[in-house]
């Protein structure tokens, strides 16, 4: 009995040490990626190539989801606001929810599952098929040549995708409330215009999406590079990328919101 308790405690301690150790390895890797980003910046076409895969190819899911989220917000917002006779404020509701929260957060969650998992799987498979080792043998540093361009492409794409998501959402809200339900078009846009502040709302949303972009791509490239070189290892790493980045996005969002919107309006 005592033995079991002791081994249970040992197990917890072992896991705690292991996860702290892994966090340390990940941080060191992150710094290494930053230090070796020179090649990506000098040969920017490497990044542009990855921008296509992570950014452009993620557009469809971002655009379609943004549209539907905006449409649902419009419907729900209208239903509630109408009870108080203030359905003309639905534009403000849609825009503020999207720009402050849903745009950066949902776009980042979608980005993690669409692009983050792809980055992890690609780097993990390159490792499993010895492509990274072969590159090292050719005196080309895989972190500089493979990891850093993907990292920067993700960091650059994320704010644009979040902005795209918000724009499509505002448009979706417009479609539902103005065109289908018949809310006054002028008040939809003008109330939105007067209520949304550039500094507090749009800029803060942009800053959030930058943080999310760094977090998601850093996790994705680390999990890929760190994946055990087997089919099982790569699939596990891909899952971890999606799960960890989703949790990190939501946690970071809370922290950032607490800092940004404390005492606003």
């Amino acid at each position: 009995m005592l033995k079991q308790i002791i081994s249970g405690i040992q197990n917890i301690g072992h896991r705690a040490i292991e996860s702290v150790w892994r966090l340390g390895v990940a941080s060191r890797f992150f710094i290494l990626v930053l230090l070796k980003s020179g090649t990506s910046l000098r040969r920017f076409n490497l990044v542009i190539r990855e921008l296509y895969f992570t950014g452009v190819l993620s557009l469809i899911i971002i655009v379609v989801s943004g549209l539907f989220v905006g449409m649902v917000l419009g419907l729900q917002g209208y239903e509630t606001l109408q009870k108080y006779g203030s359905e003309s404020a639905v534009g403000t509701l849609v825009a503020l929810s999207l720009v402050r929260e849903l745009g950066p957060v949902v776009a980042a969650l979608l980005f993690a599952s669409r692009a983050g998992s792809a980055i992890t799987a690609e780097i993990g498979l390159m490792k499993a098929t010895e492509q990274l080792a072969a590159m090292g043998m050719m005196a080309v540093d895989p972190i500089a040549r493979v990891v850093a361009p993907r990292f920067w492409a993700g960091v650059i794409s994320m704010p644009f995708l979040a902005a795209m998501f918000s724009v499509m959402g505002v448009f979706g809200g417009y479609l539902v409330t103005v065109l289908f339900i018949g809310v006054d078009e002028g008040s939809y846009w003008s109330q939105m215009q007067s209520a949304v502040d550039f500094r507090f709302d749009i800029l803060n949303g942009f800053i959030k999406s930058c943080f999310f972009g760094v977090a998601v791509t850093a996790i994705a490239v680390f999990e890929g590079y760190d994946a055990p070189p087997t089919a099982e290892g790569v699939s596990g790493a891909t899952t971890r990328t999606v799960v960890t980045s989703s949790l990190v996005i939501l946690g970071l969002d809370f922290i950032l919101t607490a800092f940004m919107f404390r005492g606003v309006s």
Partner: protein
Amino acid sequence: MASETLIEVNDLNFSYPTRAILNGINMSMRRGQVIAVMGGSGSGKTTLLRLISGAIQPTSGYVKFAGEVVHELDRDALFKLRRKMGMLFQFGALFTDLSVFDNVAFQMREHTNLPESMIRDLVLMKLHAVGLRGGHQLMPNELSGGMARRVALARSIALDPMLIMYDEPFTGLDPISLSVIGNLIRRLTDSLGMTSIVVTHDVHESLKIVDYVYFIADGVIAAEGTPQEVRESIAPFVHQFIHGEEDGPVPFHYPAQAYRKDLNLEDIVA
């Protein structure tokens, strides 16, 4: 020139914290030679290649490549040294997102400032040497195993290295591809004046093309010699390996307690 020593391995030891892999290896390889390193699976052959390329550090002893002690070099010097080495991985390890042409051109683009027209000519020459000039626009997933390895071979000679290491180049090839790869190794070594180290357990193919053979077993060099000496060797390990005998110095059975004891027959009097 042919007798110039390119690689000197001196009393090389390597061990993981729990077990020793290599124990006092001594080797000497000259330019223009094809050298085979043979041994059973897990005998430390691939570890030896990793030590020569500086991917891991020896526990003691050293590898000297072209006069430089590999493990004492810093990262930049090591990368500089590696431009003089090529390595052929077991299944080619071609970059799957690049075409055959771009795979072979990869190192030229990374390490030189050659104009694109010259890179094109060089790549086609390298591909011609392995007989795949016509396939330069193919993607790696369109190649057979033997073709992929030929492309990888063209890629590893892209910058005319002094040494190429082959990690099990014959694994999983049909007899035709097998002898194509074998002959290419010999021919490229001769025409480029480089050194080739072939890690393999394909006895018959490799004895046809190599100049010298090292056998590694349990982390030490169990035997060495020219193919002729090896074929005629009466050393039990070499004999077992060359002829693929089931039992011998390398036992068939994994170490176990007595058979009778395992079956609980101890107390029964026979």
